[in-house]
């Protein structure tokens, strides 16, 4: 059991990295607290797996330090870090039975056979593998194999952390739910630090208490699923979390009014002041489709838009609207009438986020 600290960590696969693009992980600091259930969320190639391999010791970082409980472990191999890792595709020892597979890490540590038996039976019970123990691992189905892989991580009761690298990729959707619940259950029972890598936001938010969103080798936000949804720190988090992602409009101010392209936005003065204050040209206004108010009739501060089309998703619809050529998405609940042709949208000011150079800035107080 350990607290894992990443201190000014950076990693590059090339020998002489020069540009920031050469880095798979750009310099960052991060702490994974003991006993937490974390998700590492991001698109393919953002450095998630690299970070996982650095934590487990399969990879030595080119810069910075990895600390377990304050002790630098950079040069320690995985076996000395006492870490467990579950890979994307199930890794099992084909010729062994399920029992021997689960016992393997313990036997390699010269654990007394009585203790091995006790642990294997306990883990098999948790993973519902008891009835399969005598089978050859080779003949199991994909999800059973992945359970065996996980079991090998759980069987050592002294591991510092268990790292999961998209472990449910090969599993059928119905079983995914079951295994994910199982993982949560295991987390509650054993209180082991777990880091779960995924590119699926749903998977991340159902498993983890805290999610780290990675983008281009950096953790752009670390927060609860709710924080990621309501106050994304970075435009990427806005795009990536939520379905559909956040609306972002390039904004400027002219004559005391806020414009996006040629369209005037009817927003609060604080938003205006915030934009006016920014020194960069890259200023975006962000609002989630869920938070845009959609009206059939003109309302105060309502902006008239042309409704392009609407997508009915059963319990709600997504309206694709155009505001003077700028496309916007808004969510309309099932009990509301979905507008056709024309609608009036209102941006509630407490739901608006302002992004300068892609990072969220606080709006000035009145």
């Amino acid at each position, binding site marked *: 059991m350990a607290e894992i600290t990443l201190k000014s960590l950076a990693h590059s696969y090339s020998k002489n990295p020069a540009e920031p693009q050469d880095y798979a992980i750009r310099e960052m600091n991060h702490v994974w607290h003991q006993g937490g259930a974390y998700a590492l969320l991001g698109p393919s190639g953002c450095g998630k797996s690299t970070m996982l391999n650095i934590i487990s010791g399969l990879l030595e970082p080119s810069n910075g330090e990895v600390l377990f409980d304050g002790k630098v472990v950079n040069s320690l191999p995985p076996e000395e870090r006492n870490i467990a890792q579950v890979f994307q595709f199930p890794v099992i020892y*084909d010729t062994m039975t399920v029992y021997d597979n689960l016992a393997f890490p313990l036997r*390699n540590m010269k654990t007394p056979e009585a203790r091995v038996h006790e642990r294997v039976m306990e883990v098999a019970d948790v993973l519902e593998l008891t*009835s399969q123990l*005598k*089978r050859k691992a080779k003949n199991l189905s994909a999800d059973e194999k992945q359970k065996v892989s996980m079991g090998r991580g759980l069987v050592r009761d002294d591991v510092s952390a268990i790292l999961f690298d998209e472990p449910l990729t090969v599993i059928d959707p119905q079983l995914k739910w079951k295994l994910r619940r199982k993982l949560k259950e295991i987390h509650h029972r054993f209180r082991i630090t777990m880091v779960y890598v995924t590119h699926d936001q749903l998977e991340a938010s159902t498993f983890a208490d805290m999610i780290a969103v990675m983008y281009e080798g950096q953790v752009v936000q670390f927060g609860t699923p709710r924080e990621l949804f309501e106050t994304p720190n970075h435009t990427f988090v806005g795009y990536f979390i939520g379905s559909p992602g956040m609306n972002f409009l390039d904004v400027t101010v002219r004559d005391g009014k806020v414009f996006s392209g040629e369209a005037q936005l009817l927003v609060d003065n604080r938003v205006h002041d915030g934009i006016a204050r920014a020194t960069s040209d890259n200023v975006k206004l962000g609002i989630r489709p869920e938070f845009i108010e959609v009206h059939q009739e003109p309302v105060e501060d309502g902006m008239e838009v042309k409704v392009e089309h609407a997508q009915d998703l059963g319990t709600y619809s997504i309206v694709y609207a155009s505001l003077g050529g700028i496309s916007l998405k808004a969510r309309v609940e099932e009990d509301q009438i979905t507008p056709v042709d024309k609608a009036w949208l209102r941006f509630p000011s407490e739901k608006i986020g302002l992004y300068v150079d892609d990072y969220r800035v606080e709006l000035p107080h009145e």
Partner: protein
Amino acid sequence: MNKVYNNRAWWLILPMLLLVAFSAIIPLMTVVNYSVQDVFDAHTRFFTGTEWFVKMLNDPMLQGALLRQFAFSLTILAIEVPLGIGIALLMPKRGWQASVVLILVTMPLLIPWNVVGSIWQLFTRGDIGLMGWSLRELGYGYNITASPVDAWATIILMDVWHWTPLIALLCYSGLRSIPDAYYQAARIDRASKWSVFRYIQLPKLTNVLVIGVLLRFMHSFMIYAEPFVLTGGGPGSSTTFLSQSLTTMAIGQQDLGPSAAFSLIYFLIILLVTWVFYTAIMNMQKDDNKGA
């Protein structure tokens, strides 16, 4: 679903049957034909039944050749398989070194059989051959034409040199197909080097090794050109293997009936050994406790 039964579909296998008939069944039948008859000329022939088979099975010369053949095949398998696996494990995995080593390892496989025999014939000569001369200079009275031990050792060495690369290449390709995750998982499970070999590499090599062993067994059981060129079957008959005995009988002595019977026995032995081996390996992979 309505399945349509149309027995005319059987005609579709006719081309395949014809092909197999000409490539295998008809040639084999001519051999069967000779094996049960005593043929004097185009018009004079006698049906002999199993006589040739009985005679061949009781022939001490052929029994000797058969025993030598088994001894030879098993010896080279026992050397080439572990050695091939070992070489494959040591071969570099990537970069230009991998290409160079691959080419070097493949080289012996590209040399025709009788050329291999000639190369070794020269190589082992006491007067001008590098190996023969060196051994003599070192004080060992090496002579493959006089000593059966020397002749055997040389033939085995020659076969190992010629064919171990095949096993090594097969294993190399098998090893390359093991995903990195297996090695990473093994490190995390604290597996020793031996465990990695025993529980990851060897099981993943099973399939290529089955092919390798079968190929090498069949090949070595039919070995002809190399010992024929190197030792001519001697000294005495100490290195005369089955195919050479067969050739002597069929071509040299024109004993077509006995040779045909002998050929069939030869064929059946290879078939039987191959089948037993394959079945045994496949059974090993089955679950001994299905669904329990």
